[in-house]
């Protein structure tokens, strides 16, 4: 359920919504963090739901001591009305038995808000790629039929690769193909829901393995930027994105001096 910070809820009519799927390596979430912090987006509300595990902390995008003391929750909505952009950041995994309820909540929220289009940033296990997926770029996209007509040609011009359908029964019967996004969390469910409900949705994903996924986040965000031009093209790689303060100590605390 969306709860606005201000008493009058913001209007998202005609906005583009960008949100992550909680997926392998948390790449979508990292990319979303980069986007919010780089564009300096303002928080406009929360998604308050029992489908996500609770967590809180201080402002992950703090730029001063004062702004550091703002409490953040597990799912928050940020907005930049100049470029008609809304971003939903999700900071906790979906409760095991509630992924279907969560998908319903998101799709019905997308419909009531009247977003022009929704972009899901996601990832999939690199080790589960099939032969045709192994070569070339690790980046893939999917478009719901409602969005395909409009932007399909444009994305082909960018030489983007659509996510391949894989054989349902490899080696036995090649005729039955299915969409398979291992490690993608709710990605596939959200995409199929949006296809059946006529929601204009794009899924951008990257094949990756768990570890230091910061480079994957940059790749995914640059991929998104090639399409939507949210920031100007950089002169050198990744310099236009601003790493938030919450990415400090991503691999644990400092080394205890007592070991020396």
């Amino acid at each position, binding site marked *: 359920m969306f*709860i606005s910070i201000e008493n009058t809820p913001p209007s998202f009519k005609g906005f583009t919504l960008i949100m992550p799927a*909680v*997926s*392998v*390596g*948390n790449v979508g979430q990292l990319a979303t963090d980069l986007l919010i912090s780089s564009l300096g987006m303002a928080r406009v509300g*929360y998604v*308050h*739901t*029992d489908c996500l*595990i*609770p*967590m*809180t*902390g*201080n*402002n*992950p995008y*703090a730029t001063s001591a004062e702004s*550091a*003391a*703002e*409490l953040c*929750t*597990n799912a928050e909505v940020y907005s930049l009305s100049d470029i008609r952009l809304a971003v939903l950041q999700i900071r906790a*995994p979906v*409760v*095991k*038995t*509630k*992924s*279907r309820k969560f998908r319903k909540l998101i799709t019905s929220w997308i419909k009531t808000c009247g977003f022009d289009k929704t972009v899901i940033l996601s990832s999939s296990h690199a080790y589960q790629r099939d032969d045709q997926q192994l070569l070339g770029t690790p980046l893939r996209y999917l478009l719901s039929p409602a969005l395909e007509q409009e932007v399909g040609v444009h994305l082909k011009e960018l030489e983007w690769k659509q996510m391949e359908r894989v054989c349902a029964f490899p080696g036995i019967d090649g005729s039955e193909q299915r969409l398979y996004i*291992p*490690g*993608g*969390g*709710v990605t*596939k*469910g959200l995409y199929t829901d949006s296809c059946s409900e006529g929601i204009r949705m794009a899924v951008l994903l990257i094949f990756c393995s*768990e*570890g230091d996924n910061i480079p994957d986040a940059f790749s995914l965000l640059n991929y998104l930027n090639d399409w939507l031009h949210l920031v100007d093209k950089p002169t050198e790689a990744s310099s236009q994105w601003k790493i938030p*303060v*919450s*990415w*400090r*100590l*991503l691999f*644990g*605390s*400092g080394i*205890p*001096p*007592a070991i020396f």
Partner: protein
Amino acid sequence: MATFFGEVLSVYSRAVEEDEDDLEDENEEDKRIRSEIEQKRSVHVEWCPEVQNSLDVTSEKTLPFSQFLIAVGPNAAGFLSTYVLSSGKWDSIGLVSLWNERSESQQYGVHLQQEAGCVFYKQKECSSVLICQCTLYIAEDQLFPWAEKVFACIQRRGLTVTVLSDAPLSEFKSPNSLYSTTPFLRALRTSAYKTQVSCQLLEQPNIATGLAAAVLSYCQVQKIPAVLYQCYSDVIVPNSITMETYKPALSSLSEIIKLDSCPNADVLKRLLKASEIQSNMYT
């Protein structure tokens, strides 16, 4: 995954569960079993008859309290037991009951002899303060319902919430070594909380999870003033030093909650005894 020291650990993904496709094709029986489990895991708030009566007569079906103090974990709960509740001026007025996968082991556990529970207390004369002591394990899916159900019984107008919560030092991220300063307090507050906090705010990238996070998120979203004092300690069992660390957290409430000057020795002894190793080769 290989660590810095070269050993290979088999770890689950930190982000996703693997069997998510299975949910798609469930039949009637699966659905029935799922809903039965869901029902079994639901959270119940029970009040003693007097309180239930006063709850029923009010038009909003809520209890009027101005301060709600929640202690999560053995040390936070122990702090309230030894410094506040031991004065004998408090009545237990209700509890939260729930079932999850750890309920049985908590009940019959050998090493955890201290009874786990989630109990509400109210002062005998003054009825403006509600205390909740929670040492119960609450599963991830039960945290949100806990906050929703408990706060549904409490009047929102004029309410301030204080949460005390235990946290292991190993979860605290800092570029500096901390072992000389432990245990220590860190605070998180909601936007509506305007009072000065009595310790440093929790630094990024540290976060709070569990019941403390569920309560604080609820208060942030509902615009209720709330503050969380998290005590990072390197000792996991109840101990007097960690309990004492919570003292400054109640300084802003000193008018209404009187702390005993020294901890109640009997209560303390009982708490510490419960966590002692009961039998090993050397005792």
